[in-house]
């Protein structure tokens, strides 16, 4: 028996929220996940959100929802935060600090809501003048990977193709039309060498998760998803001795696999943060799904398409085609993995006998500094 289970998961169905506040959206997501679990706000005694939640860390949202808490946490590692929150919730439950943990995310980037950090970090003086946005920082990682390993734009395009094949079955997906490698390559260059279709969507929205202790989880009617392994780390510029062809997934993945006692070959489904196609390719290498430098060959020819390839990924269409709420993709990555493990993904993309899934988040900037979190989840 595991120490903690994901018992509730909910993704806001909308992708545009002109008439809702961010707090209201966190609340709608929370109520959705609790209803999915068969619990209520009164059952929650642990609360998690990231640093982008409206107000003072987790305090303002906890007050908005009027929660009664024994434990709160606002670990901020960008879009990977929510993957880490699941692990932190399981740890808090194991330590007896709470029984039912609620994790929420919401945001409205399409309504002009500003993302990014409230204050520049110590690197700000040395980087802000050069206008690293997001696309151009990830693009440098793609360029360097191409230079060192011969990775091609065609190989990166296969990642978008796989996501789009899945998105066609998701009625909420922002880009539901399957695309071809040729279409990806024909789309305009945004930040060389990345094309428009190498980039994820921008969407309003959000989601929530509920993690509970075993005694509570066993009293609920939903399938139980156990937290079997977790790891987190970060990677920076190493004092200027940089290598931008790999990510912190190398460390967080190793920790998670060691804790779970399994290997990448055991994983039936993977949710991989896909801010850009290159994010997926480098992550797959770092997690050990293929050898370093071989990511291009691994993702080509539909290997990530459910029912076609060896490693079905992002079967909701991912950030590349479905949803990237608040510019933070970690939450939806966990939610789709839960759907797969419950056999509640769309039948066209459901992985048969899906008992072990991996979730990986990359938060921040691949080629400068980022956090990462890896989860290994098991259907009980």
């Amino acid at each position, binding site marked *: 028996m595991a120490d903690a289970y994901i018992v509730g998961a909910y993704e806001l169905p909308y992708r545009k929220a002109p008439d809702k506040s961010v707090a209201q959206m966190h609340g709608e997501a929370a109520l959705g996940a609790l209803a999915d679990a068969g619990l209520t706000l009164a059952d929650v005694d642990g609360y998690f959100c990231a640093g982008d939640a409206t107000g003072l860390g987790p305090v303002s949202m906890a007050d908005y929802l009027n929660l009664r808490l024994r434990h709160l946490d606002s670990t901020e590692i960008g879009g990977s935060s929510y993957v880490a929150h699941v692990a932190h919730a399981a740890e808090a439950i194991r330590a007896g600090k709470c029984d039912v943990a609620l994790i929420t995310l919401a945001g409205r980037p399409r309504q002009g809501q500003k993302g990014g950090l409230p204050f*520049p970090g*110590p*690197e*700000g*003086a*040395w*980087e*802000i*003048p*050069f*206008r*690293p*946005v997001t*696309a*151009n*920082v990830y*693009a*440098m*990682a793609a*360029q*360097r990977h191409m*230079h060192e390993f011969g990775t091609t734009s065609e190989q990166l395009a296969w990642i978008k193709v796989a996501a789009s094949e899945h998105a066609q079955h998701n009625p909420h997906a922002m880009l539901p039309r399957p695309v071809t490698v040729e279409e990806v390559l024909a789309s*305009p*260059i*945004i*930040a*060389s*060498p*990345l094309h428009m279709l190498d980039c994820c969507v921008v969407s309003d929205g959000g989601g929530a998760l509920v993690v509970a202790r075993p005694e509570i989880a066993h009293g609920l009617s939903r399938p139980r998803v156990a937290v079997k392994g977790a790891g987190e780390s970060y990677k920076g*510029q*190493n*004092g*200027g*001795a*940089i290598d*931008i062809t790999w990510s912190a997934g190398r460390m967080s993945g190793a920790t998670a696999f060691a804790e779970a006692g399994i290997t990448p070959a055991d994983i039936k489904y993977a949710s991989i943060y896909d801010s850009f196609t290159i994010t997926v390719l480098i992550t797959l290498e770092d997690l050990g799904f293929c050898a370093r430098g071989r990511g291009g060959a691994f993702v080509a020819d539909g290997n990530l398409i459910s029912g076609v390839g060896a490693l079905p990924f992002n079967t909701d269409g991912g950030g590349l085609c479905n949803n990237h709420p608040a510019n933070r993709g970690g939450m939806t990555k966990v939610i789709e993995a839960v759907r797969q493990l419950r056999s509640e993904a769309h039948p066209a993309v459901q992985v048969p006998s899906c008992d072990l899934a991996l979730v990986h988040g990359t938060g921040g900037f691949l*080629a*400068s500094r980022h956090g990462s979190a890896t989860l290994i989840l098991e259907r009980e």
Partner: protein
Amino acid sequence: MGESLLPAPPASPETAKFVAAAREGRFLIRRCTVCAKPHWYPRAICPFCGGETQWEEATGRGELYAFSTLMRADPPYTLAYVTLAEGPTMMTNIVDADPAALAIGQPVRIVWRAAEDGTPVPCFTPADQPT
């Protein structure tokens, strides 16, 4: 192709001497007084050993490690990592160059650009570019 003014770097006690030297056209990096390694971005505490660091003048020469031209910007500009002759790799912009003619490994040299508030910012240009 025109250039737009660069956003101003936030000032801090750790950047003041760099900016003062830059106003005289001198490019400084920081080196550890304990382990002797240079690093980037400059900081008071050595990122390799925790030792005390000090400024030294650098050559302003290096080579392109990676770069990306942001085509959706108007005008487009080129973000880059340049590996300095002294060793560390730094984030910068490549200016006065045709992005299509740039290549990883290409020699580059420093060229100062003024930010919106007049602060000189270290950019780079191909080394064979006339001054």
